[in-house]
Every structure is written in C-alpha cells, then in structure tokens.
C-alpha cells in the first residue's frame, strides 16, 4: 500500500535513541563546579536531616558553665553565650532555614508559574494587568513589606501561623518573590503560543488547559526549575535577614539568621559564634547558585540539537 521507496526511510539514519532526561544529565555531569555545588547542597541537606545522629546535644540545651567555649573536641564549633553547642544549633537551625527556603520557593514557583502561563498565553489586557501587578510587587521595598506582613500575620494569630513557626515567614517570602519567575515563564509561554506545535494542538481541538499543561508548561519548566534553584538561595538569605532583624523565627528555635543576630555583642570576643552560622549561609548560597547555573546550561534548549 505504501511503495518501496517509502520503506527506505526505515533505514534512514535514525539518531541515537536517548531520552531527554539522559541528555540533560549528560550535560549537567560535565560541569564539575555545578556537580560540586550539588554535592555540597545534598551533603548539607543530609546532615541537617540526620541532625540527631550527628550530635550528642540538643539545640536548646543550656550549659551555663560552658559559655563561650572556643571550638574544641567536645564542641566542634564552640558554644554560645548560654553554653549551647553551636554545631548542634547549626544543624537544627539548618532544618528551619532550608525548610523555609524550600517552602517559600514552592510558593513563589507556583504563583509565578500560574501568573506567567496565564499572562503569556492569553496576552492582551489579562497580560497587562498581571504584569502591572508584578511591577507593583517589584517596586515596593521588600524588607519593609516583609516586616509589615509578618507583623500582621502574627496579630491575626491563626493556629497554623503561630509566632515562632516558619510557615508564615515562608509564605510571605514566597508571596514577595514570584515576579522573576512569572516573567521568565511568561516570556516562554509567549514564545510558545506562536509555535507550530501549539497551533497543531489547537487545530486538534485541545482545550486551553490541555495546551497550557501538556504543551507549554513542560517546555517552560526548565526556566522554572532554574528559577527555583536560584530562588532557594535568595529565600535562605531573606529568612536570615528577617531572623537577624528579629522578625523571623523566634528564639530559642535556632535558624542560621537568628543565630547570627543573637551573637552581635560577642562577635569580637567570641567570633566563632558568628562565623559558623554565617559560613553555612555563605556555603549553601554559593553551592545552590552553582547548581542552578549548571542546571540552566544543561536544560538550555539550544544544546538539544547538538550531538
């Protein structure tokens, strides 16, 4: 029924069968700095999860006889003004800092992706309104709004937003950092709206929801993944900043930020109380940024056609 010339295509050069994920991994693994960043991030995450196994102390255990101990065999990172073990507090504080980071990224990615997809795909006045809202969010001083919102949330005293917990902080940070993501996703959606595969889906009769979820989102996802990784670093810094100012997670629960703030007065006499939490913030931010950069290169569609 189909002539033999057509069957010749079976023997035509078919490119090597390799899944998209495998391609991405191949490129990602080629970037050593990115791999190192990923390894460090995963190590810290693992250490923080396994905190009770890595230390004999608890984070809030006072030992007034042992105040301001410099790093030693018993206290790897020394002790603070109340004799608490800093290594232990760094581990447990990391749980909060990382959770806040991940949660707020989850919020900002969800909001940003939704806004970006709708804005880019529908265009017109919907796009104008959403992007003006994003502009408003970008133009207000972030720290000020963060503080006001957190104070307001506390005042309402909702059961799941109790003071001292990290949920409201993550929520607020997330709600104030979706704009970058939404712009990336919007640009991608705008571009893909005119692509022929989107037109093909419309000719088939696919609904807008189907086109957005099956055709546009997967092709915009790489920008979202990269934005998420880079946003994680930003969120950790935001949480640290807030906690440092005293609007974050309340003492005695440790986070890297409030550990830093608690140590202001002793920074010259007992520098280790500040160095270690600060170092952790620095390391994780650098590691996550390298991971994100490398991921972006690996997911870059311009590399896809290369063999």
């Amino acid at each position, binding site marked *: 029924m189909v002539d033999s010339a057509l069957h010749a295509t079976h023997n035509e050069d078919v490119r090597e069968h390799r899944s998209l994920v495998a391609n991405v991994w191949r490129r990602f693994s080629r970037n050593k700095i990115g791999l190192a960043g990923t390894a460090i991030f995963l190590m810290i995450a693992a250490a923080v999860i396994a905190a009770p196994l890595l230390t004999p102390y608890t984070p809030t255990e006072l030992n007034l006889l042992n105040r301001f101990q410099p790093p030693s065999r018993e206290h790897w990172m020394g002790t603070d003004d109340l004799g608490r073990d800093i290594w232990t507090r760094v581990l447990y504080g990391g749980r909060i800092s990382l959770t806040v980071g991940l949660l707020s990224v989850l919020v900002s990615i969800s909001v940003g992706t939704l806004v970006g997809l709708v804005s880019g795909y529908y265009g017109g006045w919907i796009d104008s309104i959403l992007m003006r809202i994003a502009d408003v969010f970008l133009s207000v001083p972030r720290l000020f709004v963060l503080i006001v919102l957190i104070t307001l949330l506390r005042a309402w005293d909702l059961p799941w937003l109790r003071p001292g917990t990290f949920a409201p902080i993550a929520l607020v940070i997330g709600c104030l950092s979706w704009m970058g993501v939404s712009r990336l996703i919007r640009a991608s959606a705008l571009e893909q709206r005119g692509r022929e595969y989107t037109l093909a889906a419309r000719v*088939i009769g696919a609904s807008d929801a189907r086109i957005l979820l099956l055709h546009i989102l997967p092709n915009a996802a790489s920008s979202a993944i990269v934005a998420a990784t880079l946003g994680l670093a930003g969120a950790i810094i935001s949480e640290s900043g807030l906690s440092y100012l005293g609007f974050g997670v309340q003492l005695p629960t440790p986070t890297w930020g409030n550990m830093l703030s608690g140590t202001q007065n002793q920074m010259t006499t007992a520098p280790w109380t500040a160095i270690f939490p600060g170092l952790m913030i620095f390391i994780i931010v650098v590691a996550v940024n390298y991971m994100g950069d490398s991921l972006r290169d690996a997911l870059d569609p311009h590399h896809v056609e290369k063999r």
Partner: protein
Amino acid sequence: MAAEREALVQVRNLKKYFPINRGVIQRHVGDVKAVDDISFDILRGETLGMVGESGCGKTTAGRTIIRLYEATSGSVLVNDVDISKLRGGELRQMRRQMQMIFQDPYASLNPRMTVGSIIAEPLEVHRVAFGKEKLERVQELLRLVGLNPYFANRYPHEFSGGQRQRIGIARALALNPDLIVCDEPISSLDVSIQAQVVNLMEELQQQMGLTYLFIAHDLSMVRHISDRMAVMYLGKVVELTDRDEIYLNPLHPYTQALMSAVPVPDPVIEEERKRIILEGDLPSPAHPPVGCNFNTRCPVAMEQCFEAEPEYREVKPGHWVACFRVP
C-alpha cells in the same frame, strides 16, 4: 470536470485584518489586510493549490479557513455548516473534519512528547480511542505514513526532517478528516525528501479520499500535486482555475509573470521562453494601492486600474479571474 463535484469547503468574502495599534493607549491606527475578501470553493477529493509570493497572505488564508485565526468577516462553510460562527463544543466537533500539516517539521512537534503521544493526542482530545485500541491506532498510523511502529516511544529530536513531517501527517490523519490544510508542507525539506513526502500525500489522498488545500510557493511542485490552482496576490485571489489551464492559458498579468518564471525541462523551449520580469516589490498590505492592488507592478495597467477594483468573476466555466484586461 470540476464543476460536477460538490464543494466540501465554501469560502465566502473571507477577510482577515490584523489591527495595528500604536502609542500608550494602543490606539487603532490601521489594519494589515492579510486576507482581503477572498471567495472560492474547495471541491471534495481535490487538491487545490494555493500559490503566491512571500507575504501575500496564503498562510493566513489557510489558518483563517481552519479557524486558527478568527476571521474579520466572511464565512467558511464546511459540509454546508458555517464554521466561522461555531463555538466551544461544536467547534471542537468540527475540528475532527479538518486538520493541518505545518511548514516546519522541527517546530510543529512538541519536543517533550514522544511520537506516540503526539499522534495519540487527537484521539485523546476527541475521546475516540483508549488504552490498547489507542496504541494500535497509533501504530497503524505510523505504518500508514511509512514509519516503523516501533518509533512510537521515541522523541522528535531523534528523527530527520522528512520523518518528522511524516509524523505530522500521521497526527493530521488520526481523526480521519475530510480536509487537510497543508501549509508549505515540503518547503523546508531536502529536495530528495520532498518527492517522497508528496508521493505519500498523494497516495493517502487516494486511499482515504482526502481533500487538500495545498499552500506553497514552489510552482512545479504545486503543479504536480494540484487539480486546480489559486493564485494570491496581496491578500486577494487574482486567478483560480484548473492546473493545466493556468499553465497554458494564464489570464491575469500576475499569473502570466509567475508562470513565465517556471523553467521548462527542455533546452530548446527553455531557450525561446519569454520571461515577464515584474518591477518593484510587493506593496505593504497595510497600505494597499487604490484600485486594482496589482497596478503598481502591472505591465499592462490602464487608467481604469487605478480607479476601481476589478471584480473577481468567472470569465469562462471554471476559470475565475480579477482583471479589467480580461474580456
């Protein structure tokens, strides 16, 4: 011969203007008249070739007919139903009858979907096949377009341009449509592959009784595949008739110039062949000339052509043209 066949698609006074908005408040300052009042029929089972230079509105015409673009005015009747008024579910049902093959086989397949899910998408959207039946249908379609059914779980980037275009054809065939709008389906393929794809399309047409609207700018290829041909210039159809008639006896001066550009594969005739070279460029469709829109480049334009628009009329049975010069 053509007149006896019934019309599958009736395009009537179809217009598609893209608004030009300028300034802060996006004031409407004009229109790009991409398709400006075209009317013609596409007969059941035929291939209607549509030719014209870049920017003349052929792609827009195709996309408006299939309702990828909303028409500015006019109507498109498919099987006597006016699809330009349909909404929601009715429109979706209508989509089953008309499909499209795209120009760029690299852009028309979603790079994140397997070939199997690309071809299965129409089946899923219209809920016509599920599970095992769906898989079998996908494999059958792949076989039909000359691809190995085993390719279903591969991704588009693993295929060559010709193979990808076959995948696009399989997707268009999935719902057994009546009409397929082919938007320059072969222009981005290697010449050696073009013939294969065109042959495949012709075979499929015979097997499945398909009707094609074949948009292209390669005149010899269009001549090969078409039963009738429409020539577009600046958003308008200037001439439409049987393919042999349009080659042997073109009436519109633009068609004459176009046809004189087709090389003849006979050195003796080719030596003697007179070419009509058109001066100037295609005018902007945002500011088409007053009167006949071809008057800026027409070698035989007369006074009348700058004052009034020539009517698009049937000068002999089955031969439509829009020109004052034609008696």
